């Protein structure tokens, strides 16, 4: 199964399932990243982590650990 980490830079994908622990899931889903949402990987921080996603009309930054548990369909 592909995760956010498998999306090439500046490419879009659609969220299939949000994994991770409850507080992470709740937070990111309440910010609009839910199954069916199209997201795009905008960039990676200079030190390699975290990454930035375009979600709906905003930009959200999450760590790679947590990005790896968000499944997507490319």
């Amino acid at each position, binding site marked *: 199964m592909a995760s956010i980490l498998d999306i090439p830079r500046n490419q879009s994908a659609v969220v299939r399932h949000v994994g991770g622990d409850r507080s992470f899931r709740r*937070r990111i*889903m309440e910010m609009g990243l839910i199954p069916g949402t199209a997201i795009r990987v905008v960039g990676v*921080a200079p030190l390699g982590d975290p990454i930035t996603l375009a979600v709906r009309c905003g*930009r959200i930054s999450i760590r790679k650990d947590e990005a790896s548990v968000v499944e997507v369909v490319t």
Partner: protein
Amino acid sequence: MNSPLPLVALIGNPNTGKTTVWNALTGNHAQVGNYPGVTVERRVGWMAIPGGNGVNLLDVPGTYSLVARTGEEQIAIKAVLGLQGQLGPELVVVCVDATNLERSLYIVLQFLEFGMRVVVALTMVDEAAASAPDPEKLSARLGCKVVPLAAHRRQGLDGLRAAIATALKDDVPPPSWRWSPSPILRSKLDLITESLPAEWPKNDATALWALMSVGAEDELVGIPPALRAAVAIDDKAAQPLDDEAIIGRYRWLDTEIHPLVAKPPDRLRTERIDRLLIHPVSGLMIFAVLMFSIFQALFLGADPIITAIEDVFAWVGAGVRSTLPVSMFTDFVVDGLIAGVGAVVVFLPQILMLFFFLGLLESSGYMARIAFLMDRLMRTMNLHGRAFIPMLSGFACAVPAIMATRTMERKRDRILTMMVIPLTTCSARLPIYTLLIASLIPATLVGGWLPVQGLMMVGMYGFSIVSTLLVAWVLSRTLRPLRAKRLPFVIELPPYRMPIFGDVVRMMLRRAGSFLTDAGRIIVVGSIALWALLYFPRPSPEALSSWRTELAANDTGAPEDVEGLERGFRLEQSYAGRLGQAMEPVLSPLGFDWKIGVGIIGAFAAREVFVATMGVVYGIGGDVDEQTPRLRDRIRAERHRDGSVVYTPLVGITLMIFFALACQCMSTLAAVRRETRSLAWPTFLFGYMTILAWVVSFAVYQGGRMLGLG
């Protein structure tokens, strides 16, 4: 009868321009209180509305959702439901960012589920331009008033006031849900509703809040055990129920609201700027230059102003002394009161500067990028990415740095940062280092070109950076309230926006004002107490005359500074002098004598005062600084009673290490007391740093002696 003004809450996602709306509506005149249990300001300001006496507007901290995990996040729900003895608002004004419509409307749906009067303040309509939704249509779909605003241009404010006035006259609407709970969720909600505390509204929305917020790992306060028992759900079982609510709301937003946005808002400008500012090379370079500039401004730029303030207070003190008769009262007014007030005012330049910069960084959107850029580095010490600026500022002065920890929303992050900031090499340590290095470290070159004295100074900075990071690492792994939990790092990178100057200045003045009134009071009282410790008891006339006789008898013929020697004698007789002598058994294992002990006590007023106190102790008066050759000579010449040298280079290094690690600064403790609103944290800070300083100094001194260095 004079009925109280209606309470209206102002709330919204972070970065939706809520502060600008608040300032525009209330003129920033607010009564500031505190939310019980958390160190977050509760601001209520009066605002005018047409056809009434106005309303009280409550500023609720920005949040994406009412669901909470921590005490800080819980503020929103408490404010909205009026829990803990506070009045609930009659109406909620929600700031909704027109450039990020669906996400910022999510919380509006939560309010509608509670059945609250809601007015939507649609902000940033100028920025959204063509992608802003039609307010009428949006209003029709949501079933509440929508007022478009461009608050920084003061457009739409009258419309908002009118909408609030009208809505307050409407009936309170019934709860309105845009999705239907499944039978499983339905039965769970019914069960929880039964166990809600009596003062909470008994409705489905409150039950849903409890279901989504209460869990095994939450840090909520005031949740009764009966409610916990009713919720009793493990994370796995909670997952489908959380999903149902969140997805249910967003499905509605996607089908009903999304079509109102004609085209996606233009993010090109922000994307372009980000390409530069979070780029691996240019991003880090610009970051370094920005941080360096802020640091230089605090470190060097504030210096002339600080000197001027010190001069003014010295001048006022001298003026008062010359008009009042020589008396204990005059000494109190000049050396206790005026000097104490001076010790507070002297922090203002750096506080104003730092909060001005923080305001610019926050409102431009760059602050979120700092957290993004620094997260990888800072999290190895379990620190928040936003802790970077406070810690950097600590190298100028710990007091503004501790106040700057407010940019972090979680208490644990703030406190951990506050606990390590005083370990950074603040500028007040430099006079001590300079004096000791110049007096005791030979001015030779290593390998023919590297000056030892300069290396020593660099070494002290290196030592401070390592100890700061190490202590953060250790504290975050040992102390329960500071322990790093698996906290999700989900931050928004908001669009870059032009900072609104008025808002930045208002915030800056507010912070400076609260420093003067809260921390300032403690510092003045502390300064006076310290003055008394160094001043009392006065030697009796008999003791003084016998001291003079003795001095005359021992006259070696060399020119003597009698006045300076007398001040030294008085200090020796004071409580501080006696305390120093009493402390000698604790200090001698570090190679310090009682005179250094007195200096350490005096340094509690501010570390650099150590230099002046040593001047008095050594009988050459307090009017010395680290450059005074006489003080340096005197230090080198100082002998123990057995004739051995007091200040060996090893003692000098040990003393520097002691000052690097000890929390020898009451203003720092006052600032921590102010920011944590507790006595426990400043006490812990002082305690752990003093013990650490003693232990490390002991190891350095005794280790050095074993190696034959002392």
